[in-house]
């Protein structure tokens, strides 16, 4: 049954929260400034609670079940993170308070900058960017400004492998730079010959995701970085896939100059149904003066203070970043330490390789790079032999009937019918086996009863939705029933 729309629940005169009367003498409000109408709903508190609780039951989260959504790192979100982030000493502080009154919060930010620098092998970190995409934008602006400072302001191109997330080219375009796409070679690495062909004195830098969106570690990464540096370029490392390599290798040691972190992926902060995230950016020493302002410093007297980097690209948002998200990620890192983080990455990679091996054994779902060990994720294809009319979308929708969240589908774009699977380290072998069993059954169904897949899901809160209708005549707001 469809849930009532919030305005349908409204009844004139109801109010969900009572507020005290004014304790000061009232000042008349000029009538000509008042709006004639305020079309908001009117509900009691119990109406509000029931409405949203019912809606929540139509959602699938990591706490509901297995969520192997490739490139999104849907790991379990420890509950202690929620408690620490809700400490009143963190939630009830204003971002513009005098630093002497918020030393605890600034200490946390300072230590977080340090820990991320250590994990990545970079020299300085800003916590300001709101999300991964904004971190990328920040990183590209930093590279651009650094090239200008080097007297290389004529450089205007960013090289991006064809397997990259769409945010890479979008962030580049927003920075006023041009995108040049580089093909991947047969092994899924950056094609070195192609790279060389494009490396000239118009290149600001290269953006590389390593491990790549194919789930593969680029075997030539050191050579790639060397070539780019030789040509006067900088290397941006998209940190989307950091979960595979914590304590295994540091991007900075490989030659990466700037990278962003996705605290909402790697460091277990919840995705919130699409946000908030947090996308800190780390850089090598040469780029530190260009970081967004302010960063947290420690004075000689031992006080934490706001510091404006000398040639900062500026602010990328209000205040100091998504502090509430950073508290959660800080809690997570402190609970793990170096040993724990390495174990996280090892198990993330082990789990992914186990699933890849099981799928290869099964044989129904091609794995284009199955001849290599994958990192924390791998890309299979929804091309089941003997079931030609079945597409990845059908398989994904059928998985919903087995109470799983489907993997990422149709990404990366360079793999047709892609099914991108990322189990994460927080899942047990039994869970992985259960998912493989479901895929096995679905492959059989695809051959014996394809209609069952075409019309899936059958046991979800709604059936397949008409996206064409939504886009042709958009209904994006309603204020009546």
């Amino acid at each position, binding site marked *: 049954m469809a849930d009532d729309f919030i305005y349908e629940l409204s009844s004139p005169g109801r109010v969900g929260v009572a507020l005290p009367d004014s304790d000061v003498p009232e000042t008349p409000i000029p009538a000509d400034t008042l709006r004639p109408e305020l079309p908001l709903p009117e509900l009691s508190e119990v109406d509000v609670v029931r409405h949203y609780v019912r809606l929540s039951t139509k959602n699938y989260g990591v706490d509901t079940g297995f969520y192997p959504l490739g490139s999104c790192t849907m790991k379990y979100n420890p509950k202690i993170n929620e408690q620490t982030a809700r400490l009143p000493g963190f939630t009830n502080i204003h971002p513009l308070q005098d630093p002497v009154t918020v030393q605890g919060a600034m200490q946390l930010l300072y230590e977080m900058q340090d820990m991320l620098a250590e994990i990545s092998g970079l020299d300085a970190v800003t916590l300001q960017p709101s999300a991964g995409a904004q971190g990328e934008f920040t990183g590209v602006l930093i590279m651009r400004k650094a090239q200008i400072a080097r007297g290389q302001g004529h450089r205007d191109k960013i090289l991006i492998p064809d397997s990259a997330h769409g945010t890479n080219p979008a962030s580049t375009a927003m920075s006023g730079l041009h995108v040049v796409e580089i093909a991947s070679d047969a092994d899924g690495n950056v094609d070195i010959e192609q790279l060389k062909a494009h490396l000239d004195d118009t290149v600001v830098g290269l953006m590389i995701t390593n491990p790549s969106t194919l789930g593969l570690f680029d075997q030539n990464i050191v050579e790639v970085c060397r070539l780019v540096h030789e040509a006067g370029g900088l290397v941006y490392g998209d940190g989307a896939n950091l979960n595979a390599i914590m304590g295994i290798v540091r991007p900075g040691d490989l030659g990466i100059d700037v990278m962003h972190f996705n605290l909402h992926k790697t460091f277990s902060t919840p995705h919130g149904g699409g946000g908030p995230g947090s996308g800190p950016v780390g850089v090598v020493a040469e780029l530190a003066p260009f970081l967004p302002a302010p960063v947290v410093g420690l004075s000689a007297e031992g006080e934490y203070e706001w510091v404006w980097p000398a040639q900062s690209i500026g602010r990328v948002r209000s205040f100091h970043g998504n502090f509430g998200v950073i508290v959660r990620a800080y809690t997570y890192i402190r609970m793990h330490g170096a040993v724990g983080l390495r174990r996280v990455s090892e198990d993330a990679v082990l789990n992914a390789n186990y699933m890849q091996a099981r799928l290869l054994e099964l044989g129904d779902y091609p794995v284009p790079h199955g001849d290599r060990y994958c990192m924390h994720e791998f890309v299979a294809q929804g091309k089941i032999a003997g079931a030609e009319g079945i597409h990845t979308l059908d398989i994904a929708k059928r998985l919903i009937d087995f109470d799983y969240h489907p993997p990422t589908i149709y990404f990366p774009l360079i793999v047709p019918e892609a099914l991108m699977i990322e189990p994460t380290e927080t899942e047990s072998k039994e869970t992985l086996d259960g998912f493989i069993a479901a895929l096995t059954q679905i492959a059989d169904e695809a051959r014996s009863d394809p209609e069952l897949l075409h019309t899936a899901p059958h046991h979800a809160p709604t059936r397949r939705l008409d996206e*064409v209708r939504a886009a*042709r005549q958009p209904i994006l707001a309603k204020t009546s029933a």
Partner: protein
Amino acid sequence: MSLNYPNDVRYAKTDEWARYDGELVVVGVSDYAQDALSDVVFVELPALGDVVAAGDEVVTVESVKAAAEVVTPVSGEVVAVNAALEDTPELINTDPYGEAWFFKVKPSDLSELDALLDAAAYEAYNAEREDH
């Protein structure tokens, strides 16, 4: 279902068609293009009076999952646009060579039409693309 390749238009490798009516060149997208896009949900047309050069991206066509830029195969001035597409973009799926024309250009260089493919050559070109 097989795709249509009418003989009264010429085709660009980027999937536009052009029809010269003795005065103006009418431009649309091919059956192959609409099939690849699937259900079209939105079209953004050029403005009347725009002066365009062959190869310029002048129209955007969107389906739910994809967006395609349509280039004009000929240079000249845009003298008519098919406003009906703004409300009923699905015409592109149902009648790509007829009701779903995009715009009309007063051509400045008719020889540009010679660079386009005839129906047989375009069909062969598509068959080759499908093999890859």
